[in-house]
Each structure stands twice: as C-alpha cells, then as structure tokens.
C-alpha cells in the first residue's frame, strides 16, 4: 500500500516537472522570436508554480531588459546571482543593465564586504540551520560511540566537531542578523516617490526613485516600506512599487 502511494507521488512529480520544462521551452521560443512580453510572462508562470533555476532568472532578466523594465530585470539577475553568485554571464548582463538604470545609486565596492555578502546571500537561513544540525548529529553520534567504545580518536573527532558546531551556530545568528539588517527591494515602477511619512500626500513627498534602483528596507507595513537609499535618503515608499529580493 505504502509502495503504491510512493509510486503515485513520484509520477506526479515527474508529470509536474515535465510541465515546467514545457513552459520553459515555450518561453524560450517566445524569446527567440523576440516576443519578450510573452516570454517574460511564461517565465514568471514557472516561478509562480514554485520552481526556479539560474538560467530561468537569466532569461527572465534578459526579457525584462528588452522590455525596458529595468527593475524587474535587475530583480531577476539578482535572484539568479543568489543561486549562482559567480555566474559570469549573469554578472556581465547585470553590469550592462546597471548602466541603463536612470540615476542609479550603488554603494562603493568593497571586496571583503562583497565576499561576506556573497557568502551570506548564497545560502538561506534554513541551509545554515541544516548544516548546524548536521554537525550536531555527527557530534552526538561520535559522543555516543565514544561512551560505548571509549576510543580516544573518536573523542578528538568529537571535539573538532564541537568546534565546528559552535562556529556554525555563530554563523546562524550572523545570518539571522544579516537578513534582518540587509533586506533589499528593487523599484519596479518607472518613478516612485519617497514620502517622509507613510501617507499618500504630495506635500510630504521628499524625492523620487527610478525604475531599477535598489533600496534597503528598514521597516515595513502592509502598504508601505521605510527605506534608505545608498546616498543617504530616507523615507517611505509604497509596496506596490517594489519587488522583494527575499
């Protein structure tokens, strides 16, 4: 009975993956025919189905680039770079896109910070927790073996594992704090106003952000985000004007 159930689940997964592949092929066909609107919609459909890949983000970013939707294009490339931080083509296209963004504001380059950023952004918090639990499992198993077998080599190994476990726990906390303090969004509207308070009122409009700019989120409500830009401006923008990089 269990075997039958397992087989059905496997079959369903295969059918679903085939559907996603078909969608991907359709989107690629539209792309080649330069029907970028159609291709972007189809790629988005795959994302909506809950699947993603570096290549999908690359193609989606390209489609949006040709549609001059630089915000969405940047979002796609950045999501792709989260999966493959060192993908040369993605980086090349991303750099090209950045040159097209109006009034783009980028933080200055810092190799060490960039490395830390890539390291922390490349793995989700779940992955960090998973690796910690793996270390904990190996450590506990080794401890158990030592209690039974009383072999010194196992004891040494378990101490090494304990150190790794502590480092990993610290990494989990670092990742958690990093995620909380480094939440970024991309502006996907041609122009969005920054307000000094979360109210739609022209008199408190302080400045403007353009499509494709990246801003840091300080706090958020359902309809508004408090953001700060890399040039030091602070204020509130509407959530409908941005796309989340989570």
């Amino acid at each position, binding site marked *: 009975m269990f075997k039958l159930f397992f087989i059905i689940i496997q079959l369903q997964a295969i059918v679903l993956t085939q559907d996603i592949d078909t969608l991907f092929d359709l989107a690629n066909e539209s792309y080649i025919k330069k029907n970028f609107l159609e291709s972007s919609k189809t790629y988005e459909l795959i994302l909506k189905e809950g699947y*993603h*890949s570096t290549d999908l983000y690359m193609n989606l970013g390209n489609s949006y680039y040709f549609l001059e939707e630089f915000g969405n294009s940047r979002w796609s490339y950045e999501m792709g770079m989260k999966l493959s931080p060192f993908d040369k083509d993605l980086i090349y296209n991303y750099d090209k896109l950045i040159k097209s963004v109006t009034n783009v504001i980028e933080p200055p380059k810092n190799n060490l910070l960039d490395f830390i950023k890539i390291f922390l952004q490349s793995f989700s918090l779940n992955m960090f927790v998973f690796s910690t639990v793996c270390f*904990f*499992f190996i450590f506990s198993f080794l401890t158990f073996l030592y209690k039974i077998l009383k072999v010194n080599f196992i004891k040494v190994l378990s101490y090494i594992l304990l150190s790794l476990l502590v480092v990993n726990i610290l990494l989990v906390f670092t990742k958690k704090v990093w995620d909380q303090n480094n939440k970024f969004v991309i502006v996907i509207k041609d122009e969005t106003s920054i307000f000094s308070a979360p109210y739609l009122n022209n008199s408190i409009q302080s400045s403007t952000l353009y499509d494709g700019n990246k801003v840091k989120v300080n706090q958020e409500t359902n309809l508004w985000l408090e953001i700060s830009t890399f040039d030091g401006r602070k204020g509130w923008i509407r959530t409908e004007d941005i796309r989340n990089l989570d």
Partner: protein
Amino acid sequence: MVRIFIIYLLFSNIFSQELTSSVSSNEINLTESIIYTIKINDIEVNPEVNLEKLENSFSIIAGPNIGSEYRYVNGERSSSRSISWTLIPKKQGKLIIPPMEVKIGNDRLFTKEFEIQVSKQDIDKSTKDLILEVKIDKTDVVIGEQIVISYKFYTRIASKVISTEFPKYKNFWTEKLFDPTGTQINPESWEDVEIDGYNYKALKLYEVSIFPLEEGVFELDSMIMKVETKEKDPSFNRLFWNDPFFDTFSQYTSARILVSDPLTVKVSSLKNIPENFSGAVGSFNLTSSISDEKIEEGIPAIFTLKLNGSGNLKNISRPQVTFPEKIEVFEGETIIEKNISDKSSGSIQWKYNLIPRKSGNFKVGTISLPYYSPKFKKWSYALSNEVNFEVYESTLFDDKDKSLVDSSGSALKFIRMQPQKWIKIASNNYNKSILSLFILSFIFIILPFFKNTFKIMTNRILNSLDRKKSIKLAKKNIRNSKSILIDGPKIILRFFYLKKKIHSENFDITFIKDEAKKFLKNEDLIFLNDFLDKCKEQTFSNVNYDNGSDDLKIELIKFLERIDSYV
C-alpha cells in the same frame, strides 16, 4: 506675459469712482524711464489692472507702487488711491500705451491712451557717468552661425548694481559664456579703462553665444540694469564742506536705470545644403577611433567619432555612420566639451557601442561630415580617418550560444535553453530534515545516560532470543545424535541452561534431577528421571540400549516441547 495686479483695499462699499491716468513724460530716449500712474478717487473695493498690452513696447522695471490720499474739505472726507509703474521703452519710435481696463468690483473703467515718443540713446559717452555697453561680433549671419554678444558696465562714480534683467533671445539657441549670477563681485573684478580722457571702472556683466534657428530679421531685447549711485550734492559745494572728510554729508544716493542699445540681426538661410548635413556651422575637423583594435567576438567595443572646432556644437545631430555587416551597433552617449580658454570652441564626441558577431578583419571607412563655414561663406567637409580592427573568435561561448545571440539581435549574453535542474522555491524539506536530524542527535546524546536500563533491556531481549533458540537447538541436537542415551543428558542440560534454569552446563545427572524438581511438573519430572536413569545405565554398562533410540528421540522431543511452554 500676463501680469494681473490685485490690489486689496480696506472697505467694500462703492460710492463713486473717478479714474485719471498720467505719464511722467511723453518724450524720452531709449535709456530713460517714465512713470505711468492710474489714480482712482473714492475707491474702496479691489481693483484689477491688466498690463499685458504694454509688454510689446515697454518693460516694467518697478511697480506697482500704491499710494493713498485722504482729504477733509469743509468737514467732507474724500480719498483716492494711485497705482504707478516705472516703464522702460523696448524700442525707439512712437510707442503707444493703450487704454487699460481697470476692474473695480463689477465695474469696468478705462484709462486714456498715451503716445510716447522714444528717441535713440544719446551716444555722447563722455558726458555720462554710467554706461552700459553692448558688443555684438556680427549682425549678418546664416542659420546656425555663432554670434557672440557681450555686455559691459562702465562707471566713474560710486555705484552698486541692484538688479539686471538679461535679454531673452527668441528664435536663437543660447549658450552662456559668462554669467555673473551667483558669483561674488569684488574690487578686483573691475578694470580701469580710459574713455575720451575720462577714467572709468569697467565690469563685464554678461557674455552669450547665440545661434539663429530661423531665417529673418530679429530685434534683440536690451539689457536693463538698475544701479544705485552716490553723487555729490551741489548744494554742499562751498567752504570746508567741500573737504573729503565731510563727503558723507555732501553725498546723496539715487537709483538709475541703464538700458543697452537695441540690436538687430539679419539671419539668412543656408543654400545648397548637402544631403547628409547634420546642422554644423563653424569650423571643424573630425577624428574617429575605437577602444580596442583586437576585439573578442561578442564582446562590445566603443567606436568614438570626435568633432573638434568652433561653432554650434550643441546643435549638431549625430551623423550617420555605415559600419560593416555582422557588427551590431548601439548608439552610445554624446559628450560635449567646451574649451575653457575661449569658450567658443570645443568638441563633441559621439559614441557607438559595437558588438561584433563574426570574427575577421573589419574597417570603418572615412566619415564625411559637411559643415557651413561662415568665414569662407561656403560648404566644407570634415573627414575622419579610417579605423581598422580585428575580431577574433570567442573562447567563452559555444556555437549554439552565438546563433541564439544572432537570432535575438541582443546586446546581452544569451538565452539559455538547456534542460534545467529545477529547484523548488521555499521548500520545506529542510524543515523536516532538520527536525529528524535534531531528534536523532538528541537521542544519541541522551542514550548514554540510560546505559543500565539499556543493558537490562538488552539482556532481556537476548534472554528471550536464547529461550526461543533453546528448543530449536535441542531438537536439532536430538535429531543429529548417534546415541541419544549418551548425548541426552548434555542436550537437556544445555536446554535448561539456555532457558536460564541452571547456571552451568557442566552439572551431573543427579544435580539435574534435584534442580528439575523446582520447575517441572510431576509427570514431566517422572519422565525426566526415567530418561536420565536409562542414560545412567547406559553410561555404566557395555550393553547397547540404543535399539529403540528413534522412539526415545521422539519422546524426548515431545517432552522438551511440552516443558518449553511453561519453563
């Protein structure tokens, strides 16, 4: 420009209104101003005056100035309000101030018409303390030709510039060459000059390049400048008051208005315009270059076309350039740089982003850019140099990628079409794995603390297994025995031992009988004793009693199966 002036008065009732208007003078020259006054008696509502009709002939340099007058004659009170403006003529000749409509509540009153005779500016500079000079380098030009106009202020009395109204040049493209707005004017800014034997202080006010956009004859606006001066009061010109020490007492301050001479420019159209003319008028030369002479296939390079010279750089559109086939071209940025030393010359650079799609040697030929030379009054051509470059095969991308780039014609790097390894977004597998691993780890951690319990349990399990094993082993040994009467006691001893009823397998038959009393039923004990006695007899006799051994084996097996259920 529409100027509506709303004047609020204190009261709202209308009694009776009488409107009079006047001008301070009917004959002035171009640099002089007049005061235009409208006076309304017994007005206590809000009047509105629209001076829009004046704008073609006059500039308003001050006003509206509002004055009130209250009179009591023989106990009767009367009041009047006057509004006045200071006007400067924009051109010479007979200028008209048309009847102006004055709205007072729902009533409409009209001023009378005035005729002002404006004569040319007095050119005898030597008699003047203040001069506003305008210089134009040419007045007969063609469309697009550069004209430089500069304004200079000369003074020989203490003066201070209060305000300046710079002219607006309609139908001309304007580039400021010198604009003092926002700069600090200090004593060093002034230069000493001598005009007709008089010493003046001179200050450059404004310099502008204008480029005509249309054919025709255009009258350029004058610059209007308001100056505050300190002059000597002639009434103090006696005795010791003439001493410089008492200058403070002998000077008075007055405001003066200076207007520059009007200018007329004749603009002719360009004739026999070449086919690929992009608007260049002046004197130019053209160069071209490429960012890298060896380019990798698919990697962008920048082709730059640079036009140097003097003329209407900002009015020149991007020239058409023919690039070799298999080179994708995207228009890049346009950079205009002005020469700091003369401000009339400079350069314009047009960038083209080239993406080669095929390897080989390529050439961008000479580019010809026609321009009109005002100096020689003829058409000339600026010719660029040839640019050669080599495109080598890409080492980064395979053929499939390249063909995709070709078909999409894009500047970005390729579409990717290979089969994907799809990743589930926000998968919960991690959570399950994390939980499972954590529980397992926890078990491993706490397990050593239950060592004794674990031992007991293990023993129990082992015992249970041994017990199950004892009957099987006994049956097997019985079947394999060649002499059951010799092997029987050992098999029974092992059976009881595995059943944990005795501590060792090495007891003798008597001991088994005694021990068996503790856990065997009577009938089974009788059978056991009988069997053991037979075995004992066999041990001490040379007679072989094993003739009915198969029956004995069966009986022994039955016995053991029977006692296995309760022992």
